[in-house]
């Protein structure tokens, strides 16, 4: 069994999250600009439609899991599996896509060290106030009182529970090393809708990148909330992109 020493504790893999809640929004963004943002990873953005990539913003409350309780904000892009040329058609272009985690601020030290050490996730410490119980769910990421980004997600309509647990690959790139992490999600109490997100960008470098992608003006493709989410993170393996 793979294990890591984090702040004097032994964290064994896979890491299990037993209760989390999420608000998220997906945006279609110009593929060239998105590729320039994630070019450092050696990965290539997926293009469900030619010339368009998908950028996802998500805020997560981890209430019960192996890394303790914390809040997290994620900026991710859909990427093609490394080393595989794109197949024709929208289904072909989405075959095997993963989520490249470009930015992952968290508000607790234990998960900061665990995330960076075990998977190379680009975690850094921020203040992440969150409201997941109001009609509109909200989250902000702040550094020393200065707001980097604020996201608000309007309520959607309830979705039926899925039968299987979707598995995706999460990709990360820290200190020049790109990694792939198998990731399984079991969501319930899912609500979704087209549009429905409002993004306010501050003066952080990542906010500048998102402004360059037009996220402060764009209508979301979809927004979703997940009332109860369980997840499993396997160990990471290095990827030669």
């Amino acid at each position, binding site marked *: 069994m793979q294990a890591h020493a984090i*702040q004097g*504790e032994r964290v064994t893999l896979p890491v299990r999250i037993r*209760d989390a*809640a999420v608000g998220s929004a997906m945006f279609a963004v110009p593929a060239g600009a998105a590729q320039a943002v994630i070019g450092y990873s050696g990965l290539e953005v997926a293009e469900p439609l030619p010339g368009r990539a998908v950028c996802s913003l998500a805020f997560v*409350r*981890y*209430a*019960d899991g*192996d*890394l*303790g*309780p*914390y*809040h997290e904000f994620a900026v991710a892009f859909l990427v093609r599996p490394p080393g595989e040329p794109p197949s024709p058609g929208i289904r072909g272009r989405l075959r095997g896509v993963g989520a490249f985690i470009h930015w992952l601020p968290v*508000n*607790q*030290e*234990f998960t900061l060290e665990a995330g960076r050490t075990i998977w190379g996730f680009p975690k850094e410490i921020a*203040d*992440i*106030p*969150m*409201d*997941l*119980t*109001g009609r509109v769910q909200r989250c902000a990421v702040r550094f020393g009182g200065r707001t980097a980004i604020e996201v608000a997600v309007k309520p959607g*309509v*309830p979705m039926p529970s899925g039968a299987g647990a979707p598995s995706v690959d999460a990709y990360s790139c820290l200190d020049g090393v790109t990694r792939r992490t198998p990731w399984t999600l079991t969501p319930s109490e899912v609500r979704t809708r087209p549009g429905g997100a409002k993004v306010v960008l501050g003066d952080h470098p990542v906010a500048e990148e998102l402004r360059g992608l037009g996220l402060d003006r764009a209508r979301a493709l979809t927004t979703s909330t997940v*009332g*109860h989410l369980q997840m499993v993170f396997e160990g990471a393996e290095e990827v030669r992109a």
Partner: protein
Amino acid sequence: MRRTALVTGAAHGLGAMAARRLAAAAWDVVAVDVDEVGLAKTSLRSPNMHVRACDVADGGAVAEVLAMTGPVHRVVHAAAIAPAGPVLEQAAGEIEHVLRTNVIGAIHVVQATLPGMLERGAGELFLCPGAAGPSAAAVAAYTDALWAEQGDRGVLLRCVRPDDGTPHRLVLDAMDRSLARPAAHVHVRARPTRRPPAMIFAPR
């Protein structure tokens, strides 16, 4: 400034989940229970959670915890024991034990925290006596009496009585939402599930 929350009954169930959510939201959490093993589980890998073994039925022990804690901004009093079996079949001694923990325990927690909150003119005090039974009704009546005496002094008082079988996370959601309601809305209810759309449109 970091805010401090006191959560009782934090070793299991609603109290454990309340403590974890508050810790996730970067509160300094003082987690209290008689079950030290359960407390250790709740606070695992949560550096801003501090555990104290304490029986809320012991007023002196509660006062001692508060003396170490300093000003508390939110209280979630979830320490409650469920009576075993129907009310009619419970022995008087058993009922006395339940009332001592659930009712007198709530009074100890209120007396140790509410005066400080009133002095500062701010705070949120949730009493979670469980779904039903004489002790829950007594705590609800006690909350009404507190509201009648102290209701307009800046502290939110809430008595949380969910329907039987309501998942803890929905109870906590209802508690969070109640913070936005007028102070006079002292009683918080929560249902097991939200009414599905099919019921809304069903013919009557």
